[in-house]
């Protein structure tokens, strides 16, 4: 009888939730990737591009959780010194996606833009709209969740993966845009990883939820130049998915530090350099308290 009551208690919980089909949520009327926005750069097709990368900043997380820590001054000084071509924020800039968080995010973005002096590409994460919705987020930041940017011989595609699904129309438009762009390199920004090789996950949500959607994206990228997927969401560790010689995925650890066994985070920001002449990619991670030396380094070549 106790089990029966427990099961019955789940029903009001379910009844209190809103249900939505994912194709109601990600509907695109026109191709959001066409035309790509140009990132002003004096760089040519064979030059080395550099991008500062942060993921899972979770602004205001410290208000609700203990052991969470940020130190923006080191990162901002780093941006002033390095002068990257663009800054990638790989989603979950805020913790709850409510008005208080958005105000904090606006101030943070202003500081990053001012220090870096370059475009800041803010990818939508699940937490960014956790307490609101896509329309509110777009209106608040004047952004679309799906955009494309071009720099030298590289096109950057920013995808909406906040619902752990891409949706048919987004993938269809992406396929069309990649087929037409003629670029040697594609950088795909997706908050949710395609595959994270099973690290610290179980019943939690860590990758794209539909195997067909993952395979559809791999299908689109296969045979279309050299491709680098950058994602976040995992927080605690960097992961490399070596999908193929011309297709790699790198999953970045969180920008905020969290002191917790297994689910903690080191607190890291990154510099990613892409040599368009050779396809060489170098990623260096720096601790949020000290940018004097890298805490992690990885390099590979997109063949």
């Amino acid at each position: 009888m106790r089990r029966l009551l427990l099961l019955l208690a789940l029903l009001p919980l379910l009844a209190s939730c809103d249900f939505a089909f994912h194709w109601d949520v990600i509907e695109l009327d026109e191709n959001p990737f066409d035309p790509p926005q140009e990132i002003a750069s004096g760089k040519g097709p064979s030059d080395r591009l550099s991008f500062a990368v942060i993921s899972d900043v979770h602004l205001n997380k410290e208000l609700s959780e203990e052991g969470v820590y940020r130190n923006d001054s080191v990162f901002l000084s780093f941006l002033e010194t390095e002068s990257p071509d663009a800054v990638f924020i790989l989603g979950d800039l805020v913790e709850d996606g409510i008005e208080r968080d958005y105000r904090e995010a606006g101030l943070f973005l202003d500081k990053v833009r001012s220090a870096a002096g370059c475009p800041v590409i803010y990818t939508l994460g699940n937490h960014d709209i956790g307490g609101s919705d896509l329309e509110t987020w777009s209106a608040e930041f004047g952004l679309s969740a799906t955009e494309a940017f071009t720099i030298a011989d590289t096109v950057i595609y920013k995808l909406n993966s906040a619902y752990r699904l891409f949706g048919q129309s987004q993938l269809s438009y992406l396929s069309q845009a990649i087929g037409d762009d003629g670029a040697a390199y594609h950088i795909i920004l997706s908050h949710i990883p395609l595959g994270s090789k099973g690290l610290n996950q179980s019943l939690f949500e860590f990758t794209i939820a539909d195997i067909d959607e993952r395979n559809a994206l791999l299908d689109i990228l296969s045979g279309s130049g050299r491709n680098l997927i950058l994602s976040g969401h995992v927080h605690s560790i960097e992961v490399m998915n070596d999908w193929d010689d011309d297709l790699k995925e790198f999953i970045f650890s969180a920008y905020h530090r969290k002191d917790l066994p297994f689910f903690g985070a080191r607190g890291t920001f990154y510099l990613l350099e892409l040599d368009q002449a050779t396809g060489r990619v170098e990623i260096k991670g720096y601790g949020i308290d000290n940018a004097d030396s890298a805490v992690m380094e990885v390099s590979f070549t997109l063949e």
Partner: protein
Amino acid sequence: MGTRSIIIVLLMLSVHGMLHAGTVLGGSLALRSDPLYGMQAEAELHVDTDGYRLGVAASPMTSRLSAMYSLSGGGDFRMDILSSAYHNWALRGGMATASCSLGQDLDFSGIRLDYRLGIIGGLSYSGHVRELHFSLSPNLILGIGYFSSVFSARLYLAFEDFYETSFQSVPVLGLETAVGFLDYRLTAEGYMKFADYMDGATILISDLVIRLGCEVML
């Protein structure tokens, strides 16, 4: 290639069913709302005998094969071993999984509570890339239903459908009903899969499936 393999499996299942007394042969037609392709029809055929269930399902772009062995451990206790394979011919990719779970079917005067707890693992692949992804996840099923000789209905919540690229189950909420006659029964099942269920107030449904079928006792 895919269609030929499915026909061969169907023939093998039918012959297997004919040779064993007490075998149940079942088939169903489903409407499946696929996140990528919209509504698709899916045909399914299965055979149950001696605790084994073999099944095959096909839609215009996909094929599914499954095999299950259900073992009674005395009293209410049960163990289920399930393996399945899924391939999408259009995308040239899919996954293969296996699970083992233990649990009980508890009867209270027609009301049955059931649960299973175990582990599910799998390998996902794409024909376009060389890297395979292996994953492992806990597996939980909770069910409540009414069972009689002519009618049954069961509501279940399962964290078992390995519809995932890595280390994770996706929750499924379903309702299955059946009306039994002398040597056959009609079945109806509906279930939905949740893609996004932990953040925010909106629960995102990725799949909705409605299935009507018939099972014949041979």
